[in-house]
């Protein structure tokens, strides 16, 4: 039977090293299957996060051969097996154990974002063409691969000043909701640090849901910030519009 070697990080936030495991290959096998095989046969305490194994929950993120991936959607037959396949935890977050990282910072950032608030007296009519672009943002499964790959977080560790692509996607979904009444541009500019993003599009490249994070979420939000804070006339127009529509 064909086999592959997985070189998996084992350790915690103080120390660790990679360990090799040989796994038998079966048709259609994904990296997460290989990790489960290791748990079931070699290392029962290997820490791995996963839930749906169907690419819908975004739990099983890791760096496979150096690329941020959902391990449940990364097929073994798409990887070269003549050398060990490396599987490491997400680099942008502190390791808890093995492949499990502490992603709690993301949940703290999320709490800062004001929730959806409907315009007054709405009749809840919405048309598909008006929500298509928002539905794209709502496909996000919070795998945090975009957070992992974003150099502002990965290389510069600006977690205090910068919210990361995931939360620009969330804000875009709220700001572009046809019935939302809240403005979040001050939050984007000040607390979420959208100015740090220099649109290298790394986040878009790794998104397993194919959300056009940079083009469809971040750039339009940057434009809104510019309109509100650096173009006084457009800023006033937008404010009046919001006031009128929420009457």
């Amino acid at each position, binding site marked *: 039977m064909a086999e592959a070697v997985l070189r998996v990080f084992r350790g915690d936030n103080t120390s660790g090293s990679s360990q090799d495991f040989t796994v038998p290959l*079966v048709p259609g096998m994904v990296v997460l299957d290989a990790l489960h095989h290791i748990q079931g046969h070699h290392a*029962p305490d290997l820490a791995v996060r996963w839930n*749906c194994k169907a690419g819908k929950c975004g739990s099983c993120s890791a760096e496979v051969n150096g690329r941020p991936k959902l391990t449940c959607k990364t097929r073994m037959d798409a990887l070269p097996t003549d050398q060990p396949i490396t599987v490491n935890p997400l680099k942008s977050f502190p390791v808890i154990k093995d492949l499990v990282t502490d992603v709690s910072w993301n949940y703290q950032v999320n709490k800062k974002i004001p929730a959806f608030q409907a315009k007054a007296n709405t009749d809840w009519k919405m048309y598909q063409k008006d929500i298509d672009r928002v539905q794209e943002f709502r496909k996000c499964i919070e795998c945090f691969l975009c957070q992992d790959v974003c150099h502002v977080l990965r290389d510069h560790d600006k977690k205090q000043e910068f919210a990361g692509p995931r939360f620009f996607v969330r804000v875009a979904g709220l700001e572009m909701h046809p019935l939302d009444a809240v403005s979040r541009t001050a939050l984007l500019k000040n607390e979420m640090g959208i100015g740090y993003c220099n649109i290298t599009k790394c986040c878009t490249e790794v998104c397993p849901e194919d959300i056009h994070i940079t083009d469809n979420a971040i750039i339009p939000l940057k434009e809104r910030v510019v309109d509100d804070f650096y173009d006084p006339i457009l800023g006033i127009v937008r404010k009046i519009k919001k006031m009128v529509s929420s009457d």
Partner: protein
Amino acid sequence: MTDRFEVHEHDVLIIGAGGAGLRAAIEALAQGASVGVVCKSLLGKAHTVMAEGGIAAAMANVDTADDWRTHFRDTMNGGKFLNNWRMAHLHAQEAPERVRELEQWGALFDRTADGQILQRAFGGHSFKRLCHVGDRTGLEMIRTLQDRGVSLGFNVYMECAITRLLKDGDRVCGAFGYWREHGRFVIFKAKSVVIATGGIGKAWPITSNSWEYTGDGMSLAYNAGAELLDMEFVQFHPTGMVWPPGVQGLLVTEAVRGEGGILRNKLGERFMEKYDPKRMELSTRDVVARSIYTEVREGRGTEHGGAFLDISHKPAEYVKRKLPSMYHQFKELADVDITAGPMEVGPTCHYMMGGIRVEAETGAATLPGLYAAGEAAAGLHGANRLGGNSLSDLLVFGRRAGLAAAQFAKQNANITLDQSQINAAEREMLEPFERTGDEGPYEIHRDLQETMQALVGIFRVESDLKDALAKLESLKARAERARVDGSRMFNPGWHLAKDLRSMLLISEAVARSALVRKESRGAHSRIDFPEYDAQWGKQNNLIKRDGEKMQLRQEPVKEMPDDLKQILAESK
């Protein structure tokens, strides 16, 4: 006395953060209660995200003739009249309001041409009834509820697993658990507890369920002395992936059939014509699953032991827009383009109709202070659940359980923790590390799955079920000796040793109930008793702990009031 442990106090403790748990939390918060939500995974990852097709609610946006009466009748028909009719009644009446509420909290459903929530057809529903977002409705729902809960300020204890309920006399007063991150124990002191932990799919190897589905809540309730109801009814979804082996069991949404997908055997025959000529592919799940299984058993299955499901007669763009997840799932995991050719599908263990016995109005279990909602609770779906009725179940009864739990907490504030229960719970968790047996929990789990698949599957027979019960006894004995390696830090093996106890217990409840129900009804098909039995049609199975023994008894289904009988008697 509890100095050794971290203690958190809340009015209401909710175990499980899927749709039911989150909806319960939102309602309890609205009542002014202090609420804690505990979940085994990260927030937003619960299995509700996997729900694809939609939320059933008689909003009549597409088919204007629809109303709650028809939804009630469809649900009772689908459940073969074993349902708790009061739950089916409340569910049908309240589902539309619960969907509108989601929209008011920011959910964005697909729209009709005139700007309303779009609804699609689904098996067993007389009208186009499922409110949906492509094929990712569950994600939309869980994210909406999660955001709502966060904005209301609930406390979420993520990656924390509950192992025992704690009691003060008869009533439930909290729970004992551990943090997965570092393995330290934690106590929750709570005036009421809502169980919303989902089902037991992981006792079968071919399942659409995630690792969390290990019967935890049912086992917690049973061990605390609550009753379980109708445990024989396990739903096998007709369409899971069958090839390649790595993805076997992965769900293929019923929305494929809702959007016009056709089932064929390897001879090209549209075999549903034989089994349900009227409803065809949109028959109920029990019927479609048995039909596919029968085709395969009689030699008309596909190369990998399934049936063909084909939607490629629809325009490619339409398929990609309405079923985007399915398109990507098959493309990326099976090298199949569903806009160009058929999928291969077969039954996969999907849903537990049975569960904790609850009161319809409140979700109250048979112990004071304990509530349950969603898949962990039983009653609404009877012998077979209709697609789309699960998400609406979570919303309607999650809300009701949260409301009742908050009210109970207000009226019954005095509770005292009992040190001896805490000590026993701690002992139970630490003991596996001290064992010296030669096998770990993974081997036993594999054998449990094999047993359930072979002996307690879609078709059942007395000899198999007896065999299964004997095997479960020996698996239990092995589980008591199973060794756990490594430290307490984020240790999946240790966790599985705990989950295995729940799975073995609930599997036994399933097999015992299946053995005594000597008839075929809904999802329970007995080869030796292939017909309905009039007597069994009027009674539920109830399971309760009696010391170390599992006690099983029957109770008559409550008489339905005349106005509801009238609705059932009306033809469509």
